[in-house]
């Protein structure tokens, strides 16, 4: 009986690993390719931008390290540098998002 049970219960885990990797890597490859484009906006430059923008904002508003996200992506009309800042508001239970779009 226990043999039968284990026979039915046991599912190989490697297909799960394979599928997870396929999805993850296609996503990661795209984001890394997008960040290293013809303008030389490398991943390190984006990180630096993120750090420096955060410093400037921090001088005026109390904001947390992980509340800023910078993305660089290509669209048909041109490439977009998108800066997302999550700002704390007075009640502290909600947050708003301001998008600053710089189109090239």
């Amino acid at each position, binding site marked *: 009986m226990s043999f039968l049970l284990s026979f039915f219960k046991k*599912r*190989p*885990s*490697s297909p799960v*690993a394979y599928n997870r990797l396929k999805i993850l*890597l296609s996503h990661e490859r795209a984001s*890394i390719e997008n960040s290293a484009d013809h303008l030389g906006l490398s991943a390190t430059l984006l990180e630096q931008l993120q750090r420096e923008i955060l410093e400037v904002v921090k001088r005026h508003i109390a904001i947390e390290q992980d509340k800023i996200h910078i993305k660089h992506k290509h669209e048909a009309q041109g490439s977009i540098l998108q800066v997302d800042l999550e700002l704390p508001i007075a009640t502290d239970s909600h947050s708003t998002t301001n998008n600053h779009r710089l189109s090239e």
Partner: protein
Amino acid sequence: MSKVLVVTSGKGGVGKTTTTAALGAALAMMGQKVVLVDFDVGLRNLDLIMGAERRVVFDLIHVIQGDANLSQTLIKDKRVEGLFLLPTSQTRDKDALTQEGVSRVIDELRGKFDWVLCDSPAGIEHGAQMAMYHADKAVIVVNPEVSSIRDSDRIIGMLNSTTQKAKENGEIEKFLLITRYDPERVGRGDMLTTDDVLDILSIPLLGVVPESQDILVSSNVGAPVTVSKPKSVAASAYSEAARRLMGEDVQVTIPTERRGLLEWLFKRKAI
């Protein structure tokens, strides 16, 4: 013509140093003149795996800073003719690896050896960048496991973008070496198969090295597995890989389960 080959992986503990030692020794046993360069500044281990830890006087950083020359620093292997080690520093940090210093040392080594094998540190930072920068070829060591595969993918991306070859619009010749492969778990469906890994990373396969007791035994005694256990399955996987690096057309052997009848019965009962 001399070739610079980086052994890299991104993730730590997958078998870079073991691979550098085993492949280097296998190439030297084929009559090539080989130097193994340890780039893991501050956490050197290639000297220990090669059994040369008590023979280190000068190191790579001394050479880079002009405090010693190569002939004073290179350690000649006592077992394999034509095999040399360029150890690294235990006390300095990775910033001591300057771009122009490393270039100068690599150029000098190219003049003396057929193969310059660079053992990269784990990670994707300065030390790893320096180890891969001058490479003509790269061996990416990967375990059939999700985090190792993800990190390898990052490293492949870096090899294609931040190396000298890439900057000159060329391409580093990349090979995949799967280590710690466990045929039994693959058989059970709990480890990614060689085909799965190749399908995900899509670079040519250099070899498949099974998880093996012989590798641990070899590192215990300070010898490359291709020297201390040349008949073992692991050693023959490395020797095959070396022959492939030399351009021979050798079929890759995928390790399979080898179980006796008794063991088979025993394992069945254990389920």
